[in-house]
């Protein structure tokens, strides 16, 4: 088609009514003249329509016609329209909501400068992986590489802020270039300055996270330049990070301090010089034109060079493995199955919705049989009728998708709020979401619209098949949802109602994180002995004991057992069982200073020695001397884990915690415990927590998941109910017609 022809076509579209009139007039004249000789033949209207078709706008005419007719029909039956749009909005909306989340997490970069050149690096060797590295190693890479334009490091810490002794907030110790390099602009004051904030002897400064600044300091604009205390030490507030800034990995933090101030916040900390500890996350920005593979290649040589200096702390054949860091999440081998499961589920929900709607459409088609046969006998072609019905479905599909888009914004927002996601994740409509919505609309329309449209034109009998297919889809989807929901609820119920095997209402933990302060085992032993002695004297305290794994904490130390089981390895003081009320079943407890003995849980004994007497057996070169009840203090209700207890070793003391069993209200004891715990060593700021608070927090995630699943299940149920109602009404219409004709 030439340009001028296209121009003429558009001209015809714009001047249609005049041109149509002219054509009618012209053809009328023709007939008049012709009638002088012979009677004209043919339908004048039809002939005119055929001529008009040459203008090339026939499809448009028919579309407008169908849409007008369709919307008139929908307006005429508001109940049907409302039901159909609601069903579709639910089915499509939840899919779009899922896509919204995927879009935010995986497709959209983090709100940082130049996200595509950011990478995180992991230490890798043929035998293993480490996510973190030591600060001196990070510094070595920074000084000797040729591939990075920037090297950044982050260490996750917890510190006491001002006088909040028993609530330690997450704080990140970072290389001073971190905030600037990620393109943050201060919301108030200034950020960390790479040129002098990590210089030796620099003034200790802190940059607050926006949300923490709001919640803890009431967004006080005059805070800049003032000092606040972290772990009891004064830090000058340099400024506040922008509202949406989350850094990399989107880890929660209340503030950022320069890593060089770590020994100031944790007196005795050796983080800056110690090769043995690996607390730093390593991030790098690649120079322009450098590929991640080239960076990994160079890291091999650098690691080998570092190994010459530190043969104990660098692995043989070590190198750095890169992963993109500019995105919130990424699809990898681990997340792919979960993602596909979620997609399958939401598509199932859409299928249920479409099947339900398809039933409704069938019911309507039954009621419209009359109308359709009248149209067919008036000369409407088959294709034309299908097109008419499909246009009506398309209209419904678009309405439903528009409503679904609104619903998805709301649902995604709700989901993000429920899961306490970072603030910058804000669902909106961008081109990806819009494209996805259109795709969903088309898919849905094809599914719920095409079958009834084709069926409407067929003789009575074969309609049962479409109905059967739709009902089967619906029932299958509904059943699957019910099964999964009930499985999940059962799991949750177990977590909520089954006793974890220990008593946690009256227990307090004191976590001093001595490792951060660079304590040696001997110093740690002295510290804990003093602490235990002081705490024991306090009113309300019943039992005090050390344990290497804090109850409901995030540390765990595990070993593999046969058949996929895992043992959780505790090091304890003998009073630990009394402190947590773990029942003693057989044998005897540890004796002070005893070595090479172990106490196992009931389930571990069953896993390793089913039907045999566990006492006297050897486990990891230790003799089993006792059996206690199962107490899942770290893994809660995980049935694949079992506990092993062995005596406390000196090395472990620097990371261990003290558990305290109290009588009376534990909240009251906490308040008097804090100053006591604090007074043992002025360098250390211990966290004093109620185990029952940690327990409640631990159940938050399953609770949220159950909430979401419950919403999905109820939606599926509602869809099935509506579809069934449609089916019944369809059958009634069909039977009524049949009884009437009988």
């Amino acid at each position, binding site marked *: 088609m*030439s340009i*001028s*022809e296209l121009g*003429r*076509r558009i001209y*015809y579209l714009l001047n249609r009514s005049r041109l149509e009139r*002219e*054509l009618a*007039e*012209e*053809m009328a*004249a*023709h*007939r*008049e*003249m*012709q009638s002088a000789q012979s009677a*004209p*033949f*043919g339908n004048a209207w039809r*002939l*005119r329509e*055929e*001529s*008009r*078709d*040459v*203008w*090339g706008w026939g499809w448009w005419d028919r579309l407008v016609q169908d849409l007008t007719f369709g919307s008139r029909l929908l307006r005429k039956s508001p109940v049907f329209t409302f039901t159909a749009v609601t069903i579709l909005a639910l089915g499509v909306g939840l899919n779009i909501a899922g896509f919204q989340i995927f879009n935010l997490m995986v497709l959209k970069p983090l709100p940082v400068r130049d996200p595509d050149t950011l990478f995180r690096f992991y230490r890798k060797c043929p035998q293993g992986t480490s996510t973190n590295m030591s600060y001196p190693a990070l510094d070595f890479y920074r000084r000797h590489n040729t591939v990075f334009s920037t090297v950044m490091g982050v260490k996750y810490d917890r510190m006491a802020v001002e006088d909040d002794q028993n609530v330690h907030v997450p704080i990140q110790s970072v290389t001073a270039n971190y905030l600037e390099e990620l393109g943050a602009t201060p919301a108030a004051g200034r950020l960390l300055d790479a040129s002098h904030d990590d210089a030796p002897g620099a003034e200790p400064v802190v940059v607050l996270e926006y949300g923490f600044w709001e919640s803890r300091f009431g967004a006080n604009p005059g805070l800049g330049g003032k000092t606040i205390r972290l772990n009891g030490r004064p830090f000058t507030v340099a400024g506040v990070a922008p509202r949406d800034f989350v850094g990399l990995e989107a880890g929660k933090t209340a503030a950022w301090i320069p890593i060089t101030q770590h020994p100031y916040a944790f007196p005795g900390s050796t983080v800056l010089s110690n090769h043995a500890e690996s607390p730093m996350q390593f991030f790098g920005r690649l120079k322009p034109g450098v590929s991640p593979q080239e960076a990994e290649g160079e890291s091999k040589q650098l690691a080998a060079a570092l190994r010459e200096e530190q043969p104990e702390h660098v692995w043989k054949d070590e190198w750095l493995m890169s992963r993109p860091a500019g995105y919130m999440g990424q699809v990898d081998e681990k997340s792919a199955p979960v993602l596909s499961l979620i997609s399958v589920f939401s598509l199932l929900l859409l299928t249920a919705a479409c099947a339900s709607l398809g039933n409704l459409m069938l019911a309507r088609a039954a009621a419209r049989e009359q109308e359709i046969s009248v149209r067919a006998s008036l000369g409407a072609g088959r294709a034309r009728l299908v097109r008419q019905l499909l246009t009506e479905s398309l209209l419904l599909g678009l309405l439903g998708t528009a409503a679904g888009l609104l619903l998805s914004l709301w649902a995604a927002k709700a989901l993000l709020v429920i899961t306490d996601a970072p603030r910058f994740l804000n669902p909106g409509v961008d081109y990806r979401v819009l494209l996805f919505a259109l795709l969903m609309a088309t898919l849905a329309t094809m599914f719920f619209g095409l079958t009834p449209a084709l069926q409407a034109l067929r003789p009575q009998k074969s309609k049962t098949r479409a109905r059967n297919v739709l009902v089967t889809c619906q029932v299958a989807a509904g059943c699957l949802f019910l099964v999964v929901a009930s499985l999940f609820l059962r799991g949750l119920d177990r977590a909520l109602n089954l006793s974890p095997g220990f008593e946690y209402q009256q227990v307090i933990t004191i976590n001093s994180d001595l490792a951060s302060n660079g304590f040696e085992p001997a110093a740690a032993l002295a510290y804990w002995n003093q602490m235990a002695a002081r705490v024991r004297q306090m009113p309300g305290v019943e039992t005090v004991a050390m344990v290497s794994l804090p109850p409901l904490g995030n540390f765990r130390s595990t070993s593999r057992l046969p058949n996929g089981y895992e043992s959780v390895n505790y090091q304890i003081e003998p009073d630990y069982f009394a402190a947590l009320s773990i029942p003693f079943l057989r044998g005897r407890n540890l004796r002070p200073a005893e070595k090479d003995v172990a106490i196992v849980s009931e389930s571990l004994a069953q896993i390793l020695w089913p039907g045999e007497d566990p006492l006297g057996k050897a486990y990891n070169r230790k003799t089993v001397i006792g059996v206690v009840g199962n107490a899942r203090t770290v893994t809660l209700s995980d049935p694949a884990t079992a506990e092993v207890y062995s005596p406390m070793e000196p090395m472990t003391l620097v990371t261990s915690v003290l558990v305290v069993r109290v009588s009376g209200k534990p909240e009251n004891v906490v308040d008097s415990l804090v100053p006591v715990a604090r007074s043992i060593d002025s360098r250390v700021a211990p966290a004093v927590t109620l185990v029952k608070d940690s327990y409640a927090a631990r159940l938050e995630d399953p609770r949220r998941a159950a909430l979401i699943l419950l919403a999905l299940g109820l939606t599926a149920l509602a869809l099935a109910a509506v579809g069934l109602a449609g089916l019944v009404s369809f059958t009634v219409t069909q039977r009524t017609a049949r009884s009437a004709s009988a």
Partner: protein
Amino acid sequence: MPKTEIPPGTLVMLALRVLQHGPLHGYAIAQRIHQLSSEVLQVEEGSLYPALQRILMKGWATAEWGISETNRKVRFYRLTPLGRKQLGSEVSDYGRVTEAIQAVLRTA
């Protein structure tokens, strides 16, 4: 004499050909083709007007309102230079094809 349908695709060419000598209105085009074909070819309204719309759309002719010999308001079609060119190429194409068909009919 029985009425004969015009072979498909040739109506546009015939219409362009009869317009070569000057503007005509729709009915006159039909009449002219009828007469010139010794009353063999019958142009139906149902095929003429789509063909004329096509000619207008392609820009081979323009149309303007005038008064017919019977004092009726009618639309006259006037060939454009583009239409003249189109006629030339269609006539030569048609000639080649008919000759080829004839050749097949004679020798096969």
